[in-house]
């Protein structure tokens, strides 16, 4: 599963790249979604053990994957979703007030 870690790195970098280059506000928010999902993927990868069973112990298993990162992942997902929702609401608000989605035109605050 070494590829998975590389994928995490790629996704993280991709998210960063999106955030720092794309001009469209929605794209930026999407970059955050990618970034967040990469972290969650990392969490799940951390929890995984080869040959492990899912941590729902309806009968005894020999190897069980680590439940803590999964719990953390759940929390992180919820937090990420809330933040995304707030961001999108603010994006809509900005569009209604500025009439644009271009980041570079949000320049009322300067100096």
């Amino acid at each position, binding site marked *: 599963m070494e590829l998975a870690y590389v994928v995490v790195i790629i996704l993280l970098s991709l998210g*960063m790249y999106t*955030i*720092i280059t794309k001009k469209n506000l929605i794209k930026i928010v999407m970059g955050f979604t990618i970034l967040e999902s990469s972290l969650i993927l990392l969490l799940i990868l951390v929890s995984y053990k080869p040959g492990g069973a899912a941590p729902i112990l309806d009968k005894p298993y020999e190897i069980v994957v680590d439940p803590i990162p999964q719990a953390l992942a759940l929390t992180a997902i919820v937090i990420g979703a809330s933040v995304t929702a707030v961001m999108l609401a603010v994006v809509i608000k900005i569009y209604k007030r500025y009439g644009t989605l271009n980041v*570079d035109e*949000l*320049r*009322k*605050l*300067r100096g």
Partner: protein
Amino acid sequence: MITPGFLYITGAILLLLPVNDRIKYIISFLITAGALIVTFYLIPGYSFQLDFLKFTLVPVKVDNASKLTGLIFAVGGLAAVIYSIKLCSRFILSLIFVFIGSALTVVFSGDLFTLYVFWELMTISSSFIIIMASDVTKKTGYYYCLMQVAGGLSVLWGTFLQYSATGNLSLNAIEAGIPFFMLAVAIKLAFVGFHTWLPLAYSKAPFYVTVVLSIYTTKVGVYIMSILLSGINILAYAGLISALFGMVMALRQNHALKLLSYSIIIQVGYMIIGISIGTEKGIAGAIFHLVNHILYKTVLFMAVGVVIYTTGKDTLENLGIMGRKIPVTSIATLVAFLGIAGVPFFNGYMSKSLIKEAVQEPLLTWGLNLMSFGTSLIFLKFIYYAFFKNSNVNLTKKPAISMQLGLGFLTVLMLLIGIHPYLLENLMNTDLGIHYFDKKHMLSGIQPFLWSIPVFLLLKKYVVKNYVRLLYFDMYRKMAKILVTTGYQLSNYHDGKLHKYLLWATSTLIILLVLLMF
């Protein structure tokens, strides 16, 4: 423990209470007079210790020099408060009290921490006096405050260096950070190059404020210099240059207050020379000169203040009302003039001759002579305008009694010291072994004054002239402009583009990673 400084500060707080005018007068008088009495009865050698943070502070430490200085400060305080009590509002009066109190505390302070704190308190209170005094002084106050705080901060930095080098905060021997203390004292003393705040502040501020400021601001610097930086011979030449510069500038002024301000620079030059010689005589001479200078310069400022009060302007022409219309003021002015010119039997004479006695090098002796000569010349101009030039300015109102009271009080003291110069020595508990009314001293003392009269008569055309172009160059404004421009450029970089900010952030992350990993 009641010290005069804290007494004054208490008075300031009392004055902030909502009281009517009568009680205000009573409080002011009680505080000032009380401070004078307390100062008088302070015993040299007394000190008081206080634990603060991890230091042991000495907020009060009395010795001979500080007692004399404190005494004259208290006297000046009494006179100045009496002089200005009718004119200024209660809030400004309270600030003046804080100012005087902190100046007194600085004089009696026994460690660098206390010194710095009250030094800055002086700065703050005086700045606010200037800022709040009238409408035209806002920018002046801004400038003044910045200069003074720069000086204060260099005291602070010197203190830190000293503390880290020696591990204590005692006031006696400075080992590290001498340049910074020098810078601080230079700003306070209005050395040439650092003098720009003085004429500006003293001429723009209302006259009653100027009176108070002129008593303390530079003099505290002198006193601190005498403690911290005595015996650095090279400074004597700097003082000389400063004084000569002040002379030239003072001769070119048309306004009485500016003239007096520049003349402060000259007088401070005397004190610098005295201190930097470093001998007992030199320092004692400097302190005595400080006392004398406070007396006659305050009187002169007060006199000009009366003129301003009565006529509304401070050009030299307006001094013409002296002579007959305001007799008390005129007499005081004359006495002060004679004192400042170093005429025997007047007070300036004794300290000047003491300093001259202490000076060994011929160049400095000649310089001192030149300074006396210049001083006489300047004040001859002043006197000429006041008494000899016919003018047709009229009084608009009568001078207040309180003003004349303050004036008269100081004049009496001045005469007293002039006639009996050993008074100061007694107060300081030293015997310098000088006979002031010696023939030699009297001759060397009066010579510059006598020379100045014919020179003034000869060059009257040039001296008494309405100068239009003033020599004025301020490098601090230029420096400030550079700073402001830098700030403007920086501010232009913050143009609201989110991408730029994010780019900065990412770059920071990479730099951080690189720095921490390798």
